[in-house]
């Protein structure tokens, strides 16, 4: 099994990815990275997460999201009360910046937390305890001195945001499919619809499981696997429809490759 990253270096690795690590600590970390597979893997993962998050579409969060985040930041003592007022439509630039920040948080946190929670699954499921052993380092990196419950609550909020992000993407994709003037043949359409319903069922079941057991790593992994699968299937279905419209048989066949990803 792949070695785990050293907890002593997790913070420095994240700072390196953020570009905030000083020269001396950077040199020390590089020496360590040369010798530690686990930390190298973590660095690579985080860099990939950063790149992936950077490529995501901007998301305009509803005001309640800001309130949740602001509340958490205030609880952690990281912002003053004056900064916590809700963003209004008169300050769209603030909202945009917030959206970008949230997007990075959402994308980064879900991608970061998922592998971590998978790794921590054994402990979490064996004891029925939250998956915090796998995710606490992320919280510590941010200098979070809040209680374990608060950390868990924050993580759950991030997952909810990530889930919302996926749902937004799904909504947009469904709108794109709806607006298409052409279509694939009815048998293939019916089959795809049926399979999307299968994925919907998986999403609904996993979501219900997360509501009943918020700390279940299996439920959480299952939910995000299903969401990712649906996004991929919708994206490639739209591409397939476009190729069908062109009457491009070879192109259609090529697209089978994409339709099956996810």
């Amino acid at each position: 099994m792949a070695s785990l990253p050293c907890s002593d270096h997790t913070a420095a690795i994240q700072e390196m990815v953020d570009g905030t690590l000083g020269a001396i600590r950077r040199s020390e970390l590089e020496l360590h990275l040369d010798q530690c597979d686990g930390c190298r893997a973590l660095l690579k993962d985080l860099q990939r997460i950063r790149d992936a998050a950077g490529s995501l579409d901007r998301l305009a969060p509803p005001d309640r999201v800001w309130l949740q985040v602001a509340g958490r930041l205030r609880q952690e003592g990281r912002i003053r009360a004056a900064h916590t007022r809700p963003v209004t439509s008169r300050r769209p630039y603030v909202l945009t910046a917030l959206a970008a920040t949230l997007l990075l948080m959402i994308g980064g946190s879900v991608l970061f937390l998922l592998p971590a929670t998978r790794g921590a699954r054994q402990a979490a499921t064996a004891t029925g305890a939250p998956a915090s052993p796998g995710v606490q380092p992320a919280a510590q990196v941010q200098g979070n001195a809040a209680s374990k419950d608060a950390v868990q609550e924050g993580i759950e909020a991030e997952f909810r945001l990530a889930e919302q992000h996926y749902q937004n993407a799904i909504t947009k994709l469904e709108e794109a499919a709806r607006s298409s003037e052409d279509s694939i043949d009815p048998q293939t359409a019916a089959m795809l619809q049926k399979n999307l319903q299968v994925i919907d069922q998986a999403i609904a079941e996993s979501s219900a499981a997360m509501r009943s057991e918020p700390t279940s790593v299996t439920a959480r992994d299952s939910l995000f696997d299903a969401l990712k699968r649906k996004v991929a299937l919708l994206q490639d279905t739209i591409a397939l429809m476009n190729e069908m419209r062109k009457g491009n048989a070879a192109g259609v066949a090529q697209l089978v490759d994409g339709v099956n990803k996810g």
Partner: protein
Amino acid sequence: MTRRPIAPFAVFALTLATALPAAAQVYPERIPTAAHARVQRDRTDRGQRDQNREEQTERTTKTVKIGATGELDVANISGDVLVTRGNGQEATIEIVKTARAQSADDAKALLGLVNVEVTERAGRAEVRTRYPSGDEIRGQNRRNVNVSVAINITAPAGTRVSAHSVSGNVSARDIHGELTLESVSGNVTITGGGRVAGAKTISGNVDITGVDVDGELEASSVSGNVAIHKGKARRVTLSTVSGGVALEDVDAERVSMQAVSGDCSLAGNLASGGRYELTSHSGEIRIAVSSGTGFELDANSFSGSIRSDLPLTGQTTGSGDRRGRPQRSLHGTYGNGSAVLDLTTFSGSIVISKR
């Protein structure tokens, strides 16, 4: 969480009456409907209609010089593609067009509307099926072109083959050049062979037997089963949504098998140092291990049961909850623990047994 209905597919299926170009013409049954039941009824109607129709067939054969390690690129729209191993430096391409219409004359006329172009250049041959455009069809007072084309190719063993069909099966036998076989609505079958770049379908099964791949083998379907029997590959990735995935007697160091509602099944030897990740949402995960390599097990299910018939050392279990639900995690080591089994299902069960 807010569930979103899959409305677009109902909507776009309802907009099918729009005139479409060539690809549309191969679906004479195309009618504006979104209901699966309606589709099934159409299928039955079409079958009965075809039985009452006259059939005409046209068979032609072409030979192309592509060399022992040449390349074939086949794109069909409606009909099967089969590539089998031959000898020498040439590929023989048999094209069988089949038309159905109300009269024999009409069927014969339809045959002339569909062309199969074979082009050859520098060790590479392309086969393309061309249907008439919508305007051409309407110009002949027709609504559709009910013609399917079967393409049977005999090619040198080392030929690199890329074969696609929108509606039809795609198969290769004993071809050792790189294979990329894909279908939208049809099965993909590979028997023998050495390099499989991809074997994929949306609505159909993928079945691979007796391959020896020096690298990654990827196979997938959306609604069908994906199975590999007796073979070798460094890395295997299988996925489907509503079908099942199965691996039997395949030597591979890295295996990833994913299904949503179907089962995942792995039977055979595990590679020392190998890693096997099987995931299904509601399907069952079955592992049947042959004697030899041991493994480290990490099995998890949210609401299903987990059972190992093999003795595990250092075993830990996540107990069921107070409501008496079944065991939800099982971890431990069997034998030398040199392989890793990472098994996850949400509501299905997990069974590990000796083969």
